[in-house]
């Protein structure tokens, strides 16, 4: 079923530009009037803008249901038109884009609301309330950019959004730009994110160049517009190596944006941003743009199995790799960050293999539960901050904490370090429960959302790419383990620091969104239940190859499938993964309650901060240090780049080119020549020649007296030499 190119899209479809413009209006209002509005008003204004965008998305969704999934393209304005290039800013409304809009708008709005409360505290903790408005302006900007991305009708507009969200990410990671390591750490983290993303964008750009070069001649009327439909239509006519190149370059873009190997390094550092940022941008929405891109490009990816294979492998390896790192992190957000990378690996693997629906499904559920986890983590952190605050203001408690410090923890108090937490389930009940929901969803326990989506990916993987299946399954095991570890470290046991003991629950403005998200995480999986496959059918309107494959699969399952196929659900796969998850959780339980108890007997100085450290030894250190990838890049890329550019700038360009070549060779040579001409030649060389001649002449005249030459006569000599030369030449010529 192809989309109808509706220029005069009827009804709600024509509202689609508003998904972009509501947030834009919101941010403009906040820029212009924000100075006069109170904090609450700013936050609610921004939330309203985001909520309205979500409302539009809902209306679009309803219209789509009404049109039985038939999407439309809504042209907005001409962007770039030169010769055979015709780029439009057009909106695309189909089930895929609306799904994304719903996620972005819905989760986005919830996080906006949450942030009203969270940022209120955050700007105070960090001592700069002036930034409150800035935060919401950036946040709205992000929503707008993300909406541009998901609503784009062509690759270039998608890229506009793509870079736009990158910008917001940069700005928000560096939101506390005067904080972090040496006061500049956050700013550097932002820069790292942007530049890493740019590396990916380079891939995206090259892919688009290739597309233009090879698709344009085949385009209708010779005019190429980069829109998804025409790309899909032309792609089969293009040589497959070209398609392979395009898809692989695009994969680089995906790796950048969705934090896949080898470009994942920016995402953990991106946790420097305020927690709502991590939730919205670095978990739920922006980082999934890569997945969305591959799903969008299903038509070209489906043409080249090799590319699909690569994508799947990248996704699979990333999933496992990041999961191992997550196991050994102590920062509550870092764990979630690596978990995000890992989960993105799942999605990328899925869309890579051609399981577009499964990938998209996981994208949606992941948006729910990961946003939830981050926000609850934010709640935890905020709670810890409160605790810390309480401690700071209570001399008694402060002394108590000092003692603790003397006992072992020498570092400055870090409210994000899980080693400082523990036992929070009593002090922050709501947070605990919602966190648990999120964790279970992530771990893939029936019936939480993550189970359904992850299982679908695993089932498809087994079918399409067994190697990747095993990678993902092991990753799933780790996932359950580190989530178990985190929940236990944070919420169970005894408080390991005084602030943890003093932590308390956050206000409803923060907890209500959490609860909503918790519900979504719990029941979100029901979007695509066996037999019913609501979500599959929904996406199938847009993604046809997936539709065919899945339909074939579903039919096979319904009619001639083996016993373990149950309404599209592979029971073996589901069972195995659930079993592994449960084992992992149990293992975590064993280690982090029993083992920790056992270790308590050791003196504090020799007691490891994590039981696993003693159990795994160097492996744990490797995981803790992210397998030294940052260091590797520092050594392989950053240091050489800095060195080369220093060398070019200081040695080649300045010392050699500027100083030596210009000043010494050109200018110096010039002056030298002038000097030579002014002195030796004018007075010496010509004199010398003249003298020589004069000597000869004198010899001829038998006047062997050495006569001191004077200037007038030298001048005459010069004339004479000139005459002699000219006459000699003429005589020579004439003969």
């Amino acid at each position, binding site marked *: 079923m192809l989309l109808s190119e509706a220029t005069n899209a009827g009804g709600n479809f024509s509202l689609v530009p508003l998904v972009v413009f509501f947030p834009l209006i919101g941010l403009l209002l906040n820029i212009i009037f924000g100075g006069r509005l109170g904090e609450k008003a700013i936050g609610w204004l921004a939330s309203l803008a985001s909520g309205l965008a979500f409302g539009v998305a809902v209306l679009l969704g309803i219209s789509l249901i009404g049109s039985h999934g038939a999407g439309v393209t809504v042209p907005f304005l001409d962007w770039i038109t030169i010769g055979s290039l015709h780029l439009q800013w057009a909106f695309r409304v189909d089930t895929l884009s609306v799904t994304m809009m719903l996620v972005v708008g819905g989760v986005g709005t919830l996080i906006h609301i949450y942030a009203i409360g969270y940022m209120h505290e955050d700007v105070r903790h960090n001592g700069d309330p002036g930034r409150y408005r800035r935060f919401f302006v950036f946040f709205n900007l992000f929503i707008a950019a993300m909406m541009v991305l998901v609503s784009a009708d062509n690759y270039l507009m998608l890229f506009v959004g793509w870079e736009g969200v990158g910008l917001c990410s940069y700005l928000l990671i560096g939101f506390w730009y005067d904080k972090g390591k040496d006061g500049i750490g956050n700013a550097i983290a932002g820069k790292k994110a942007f530049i890493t993303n740019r590396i990916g964008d380079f891939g995206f750009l090259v892919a688009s160049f290739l597309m233009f070069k090879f698709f344009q001649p085949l385009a209708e009327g010779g005019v190429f517009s980069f829109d998804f439909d025409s790309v899909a239509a032309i792609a089969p006519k293009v040589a497959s190596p070209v398609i392979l190149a395009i898809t692989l370059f695009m994969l680089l873009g995906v790796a950048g944006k969705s934090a896949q190997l080898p470009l994942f390094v920016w995402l953990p550092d991106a946790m420097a941003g305020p927690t709502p940022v991590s939730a919205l941008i670095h978990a739920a929405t922006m980082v999934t743009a890569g997945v969305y891109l591959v799903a969008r490009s299903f038509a070209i990816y489906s043409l080249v199995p090799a590319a699909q294979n690569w994508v799947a492998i990248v996704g699979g390896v990333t999933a496992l790799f990041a999961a191992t790192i997550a196991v050994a992190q102590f920062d509550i957000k870092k764990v979630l960050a690596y978990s995000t990378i890992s989960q993105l690996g799942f999605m990328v693997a899925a869309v890579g293999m051609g399981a577009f629906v499964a990938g998209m499904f996981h994208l949606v559920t992941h948006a729910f539960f990961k946003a939830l986890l981050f926000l609850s983590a934010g709640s935890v952190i905020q709670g810890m901050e409160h605790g810390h605050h309480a401690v700071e203001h209570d001399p008694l408690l402060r002394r108590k904490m000092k003692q603790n410090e003397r006992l072992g923890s020498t570092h400055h108090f870090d409210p994000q370090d899980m080693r400082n937490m523990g036992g929070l389930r009593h002090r922050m009940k709501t947070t605990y429960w919602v966190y648990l929901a999120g964790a279970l969803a992530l771990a893939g326990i029936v019936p939480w959302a993550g189970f359904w989506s992850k299982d679908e990916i695993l089932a498809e993987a087994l079918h399409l790419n067994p190697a990747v299946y095993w990678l993902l399954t092991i990753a799933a095991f780790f996932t359950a383990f580190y989530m178990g570890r985190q929940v236990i470290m944070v919420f169970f046991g005894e408080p390991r620091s005084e602030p943890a003991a003093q932590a308390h629950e956050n206000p409803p403005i923060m907890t209500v969104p959490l609860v909503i998200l918790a519900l979504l995480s719990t029941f979100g999986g029901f979007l695509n239940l066996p037999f019913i496959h609501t979500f599959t059918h929904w996406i199938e309107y847009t993604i046809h190859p997936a539709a065919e494959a899945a339909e074939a699969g579903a039919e096979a399952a319904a009619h001639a499938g083996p016993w373990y196929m149950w309404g599209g659900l592979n029971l073996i796969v589901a069972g195995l993964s659930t079993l592994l998850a449960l084992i992992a959780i149990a293992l975590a339980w064993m280690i982090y309650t029993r083992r920790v108890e056992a270790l308590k007997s050791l003196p504090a100085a020799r007691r490891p901060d994590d039981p696993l450290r003693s159990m795994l030894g160097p492996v744990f250190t490797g995981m803790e240090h992210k397998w030294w990838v940052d260091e590797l890049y520092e050594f392989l890329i950053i240091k050489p780049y800095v060195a080369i550019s220093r060398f070019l700038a200081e040695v080649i360009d300045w010392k050699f080119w500027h100083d030596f070549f210009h000043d010494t060779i050109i200018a110096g040579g010039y002056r030298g020549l002038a000097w030579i001409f*002014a002195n030796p030649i004018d*007075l010496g060389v010509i004199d010398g020649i003249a003298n020589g001649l*004069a000597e000869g*002449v*004198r010899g001829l*005249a038998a*006047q062997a007296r050495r*006569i*001191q*030459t*004077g*200037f*007038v*006569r030298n001048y*005459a*000599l010069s004339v*004479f030499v000139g*005459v002699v030369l000219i006459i000699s030449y003429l005589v020579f010529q004439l003969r």
Partner: protein
Amino acid sequence: MVPVMYYVILSAILFIIGALGVLIRRNAIVVFMSIELMLNAANLAFVAFARQYAATSGQLFVFFVMTVAAAEVAVGLALIVAIFKTKASINVDQINTLKG
């Protein structure tokens, strides 16, 4: 009859002697006399050619040259006298404050 070329060669030799005189001698007056010698060498050539072509213009030229030489002498000697007053020398080698 002596071929005209002989005169020309003689005049050339005289001319060169004159030129060498300019190059070699230091006394300004002698230098100036050498220049006169060069002019007279030219005169000789003129007269010789005039005779060859039986053209009077060549001989006419000689008179002009002589007149001009006389005028130059007037100016030149005056200059030399002036220099001598200032420097008490007419050695051209000592007249070298301007250079570079």
